[in-house]
């Protein structure tokens, strides 16, 4: 036994020596702590926000956003573009100085291959390409994108990382294909986990699932060379661990900080904190189908619920940075109503609306929701708050927490009568919120269809879907949101805050909703 103890002491001493004596690295390394939400790095299957962080550093898209907002479309691989008068044909001219990480020049063929592969893989992001009728390359530097119907959001969609351009020749050699049956015959998916074929400032070195993703500088990068030689994205599923590792200096950015961790970070001079409202919209769904929704399918009851909610109190549940949108378009999107235009809490009005609807003494209803925590927002707490708020106007809410997957299935199937849910934008254009209108993805979940919706909203919806003039669009979105405040099966609750903490020595930290942080612009 004594020998064993001796061994332990020696081993610990050895290990302390090794730990303490970490040699100074000449290589400039950035270490990011991230709760890994992706299972692979095939960019044409990209869907998760964590993956965007990596794809942004490795690949480029035809057009892009500014580094700190999603407010305008900027050139990227395409130096310019024209749009036909009917809004159907987009002609892009590519830059002539772009090369892939292996030195091959970028051609229009690569763009055609990439877009078609993404569409034909029929994976999670493929819906973004639904409106694309064809992509052609009349010459080496020209890409012609033809739409089936005008889509005012197409340029914003093209910024999404799944539209990244890869080196067609390299990916083909690995079994990749853009053929129509790509979903069955493409075999390049796993190759992307330890390789890349992009034009971005970094290349994928290797991906060790659930452990780390390592990027190295692209020696052939056509733009300005990034500061860091190597970027290591370490999977740290637990926010508390990320915070500890940041405080200890082992990571430089913690991507999943929660609101309750902020106070203890504030006094630390070595750490900077960035908080903003997220683009996640948390809302109540009230089913339009009386058989499923019961009393909450009544438009007067729906309005009463919107008046009965204590928005100021709900906001506290999302933590710092939380805001309340005025309707179903989150703050930050073009055309969103100002927060000051939100419906106020008015209990008398809510009570009289309930009386008008035939429920002077209220009613009892089940509130179904996924029992989980999303970016720091605990759904069970939000549900309790809704329960308490509605109790004040006589509505008795029974809380029905459900396991996420089970709940999700019922919600997607339109089976939730009264539900508490969230929506993240698929792409950064206000048009994504047409999904909350009749016949939209979320609208259908509330059984709000062309048949049971009134003509006003259907007409607004159809107009906004094809309108390209920004002024007119904003006006249409405004009318839609004012309509949503008065009728319709949803009540907006809040947009929770989103928080990042990083080493105060790090320069160039900027956030936008699409890729969150452009790692290639960071330096010490």
């Amino acid at each position, binding site marked *: *036994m004594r020998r*064993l*103890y001796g061994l*332990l002491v020696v*081993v*610990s001493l*050895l*290990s*302390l*020596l*090794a*730990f303490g004596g*970490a040699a100074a*690295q000449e290589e400039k*390394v950035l*270490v990011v702590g991230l709760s890994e939400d992706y*299972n*692979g790095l095939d960019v044409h299957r990209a*869907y998760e926000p964590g993956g965007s962080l990596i794809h942004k550093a490795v690949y480029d898209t035809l057009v892009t956003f500014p580094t700190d907002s999603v407010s305008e479309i900027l050139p990227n691989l395409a130096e310019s573009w024209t749009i036909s008068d009917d809004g159907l044909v987009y002609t892009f001219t590519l830059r002539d100085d772009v090369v892939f990480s292996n030195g091959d020049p970028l051609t229009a063929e690569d763009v055609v291959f990439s877009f078609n592969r993404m569409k034909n893989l*029929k*994976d*999670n*992001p*493929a*819906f973004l390409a639904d409106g694309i009728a064809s992509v052609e390359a009349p010459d080496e530097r020209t890409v012609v994108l033809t739409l089936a119907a005008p889509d005012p959001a197409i340029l914003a969609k093209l910024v999404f990382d799944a539209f990244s351009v890869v080196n067609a020749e390299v990916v083909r050699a690995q079994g990749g294909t853009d053929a129509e049956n790509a*979903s069955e015959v493409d075999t390049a*998916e*796993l190759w992307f986990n330890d390789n890349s074929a992009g034009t971005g400032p970094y290349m994928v070195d290797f991906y*060790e*699932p*659930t*452990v*780390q993703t390592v990027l190295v500088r692209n020696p052939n990068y056509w733009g300005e060379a990034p500061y860091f030689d190597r970027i*290591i994205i*370490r*999977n*740290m*599923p*637990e926010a*508390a*661990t990320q915070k*500890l*590792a940041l*405080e*200890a200096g*082992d*990571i430089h950015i913690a991507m999943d900080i929660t609101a309750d961790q902020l106070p203890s970070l504030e006094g630390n001079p070595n750490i900077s904190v960035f908080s903003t409202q997220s683009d996640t919209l948390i809302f109540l769904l009230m089913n339009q189908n009386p058989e499923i929704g019961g009393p909450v399918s009544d438009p007067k009851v729906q309005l009463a619920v919107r008046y009965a909610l204590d928005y100021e109190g709900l906001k506290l549940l999302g933590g710092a940075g939380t805001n309340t949108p005025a309707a179903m378009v989150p703050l930050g999107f073009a055309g969103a109503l100002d927060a000051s235009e939100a419906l106020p809490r008015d209990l008398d009005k809510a009570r009289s609306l309930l009386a008008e609807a035939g429920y002077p003494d209220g009613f009892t209803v089940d509130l179904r929701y996924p029992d989980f925590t999303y970016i720091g927002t605990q759904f069970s707490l939000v549900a309790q708050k809704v329960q308490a708020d509605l109790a004040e106007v006589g509505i008795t809410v029974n809380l029905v927490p459900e*396991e*996420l*997957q*089970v709940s*999700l*299935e019922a919600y*997607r199937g339109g089976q939730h009568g009264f539900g508490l849910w969230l929506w993240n934008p*698929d792409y950064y254009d206000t048009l994504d919120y047409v999904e909350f209108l009749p016949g939209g*993805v979320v609208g259908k979940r509330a059984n709000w269809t062309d048949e049971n919706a009134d003509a006003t909203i259907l007409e607004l919806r159809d107009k906004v879907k094809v309108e390209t003039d920004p002024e007119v669009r904003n006006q249409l979105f405004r009318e839609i949101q004012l309509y949503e405040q008065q009728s319709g099966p949803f009540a907006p609750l809040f947009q929770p805050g989103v928080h990042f903490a990083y080493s105060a020595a790090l320069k160039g930290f900027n956030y936008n909703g699409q890729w969150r942080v452009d790692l290639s612009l960071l330096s010490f």
Partner: protein
Amino acid sequence: MSLSAYFLRRLLLAVPLVIGISLVSFIIANLVPSDPMAANLGERAAADPEIVAAFRAKWGLDEPFFVQYFTYLRNLLSGDMGTSIRTRRPVADELLRYMPATVELATAGIIVALIVGVPLGVISAVWRNRPIDFVARIISLIGVSAPVFWLALVALLLLYLRLRILPGPGRLDAVIPPPPTVTGLYTIDALIAGQWRTLGNALAHLILPAVVLGAYSAGLITRITRSAMLDVLSMEYITTARSKGLRERTVILRHGLRNALLPVVTVIGLSYGNLLTGAVLTETIFSWGGIGRFAYDSARSLDFPSIMGVSMLIALVFVLTNLIVDMLYYILDPRIRL
């Protein structure tokens, strides 16, 4: 019966056991009132009937339950554990990728538990009801009852962040690349490759999670050792040994501990099985990419092939640890051979 025949018979018995477990896991996984489609397809893809149909066909989810099961079993017998729905990699590869991290952690954990538990148990039995016994019992109580989550965070806060004597989460520092894979255990692989710095770093990274993971087993082993020692020390042969004038040290270790070890071995075996399969919290907090975390992620996305793979692996782990415990019994206690 000879040892090898005994071993072989036990191993053969494991086959029907594992098949039975596969059936039960398959039934349970299928009984969950949820759909892998919802868990693995994005919002929009799940709304597209064509994509949903293709998904079901690809993963065989459109087949009746028993057809799915027998397909699985047939593939399994030919050595194919299927492909993970979530990661799209072969399940066997995934298990091989994640198991070594967990084996390394659990082994370190059980070593910690042994180094702490057995001496503490012996000490507290020998000096029964003295202050040192009291202290040992408090330690074992804390070990058994402190939540892993709490213990892990406190340990990290104190030893990693404040005192800076141990490294933080992960199996290695970010700047140290993993050693070339032979066994997948970083310590062993670093040793094989002769990378001493990597070895030191891997060992240092092991200490905190191993202590946290081993704490419960340490407490348990302390208690079992203490009570087993107390039983043994009251036996007549101990009195005999003492009256022969043997040194107290010899009496306690050679005559006492050796006989008290039998129940302890059982607990160690079971604990090791538990550590190998139940480390999900420790793995999460310490960002340790092991099988526990893989099982958790697979379960959350209803990744049937992975869930099945993990279940079979866990079954095998318990069959094997039990087998090893029985073999140790065989060696430790000659009476069993009769």
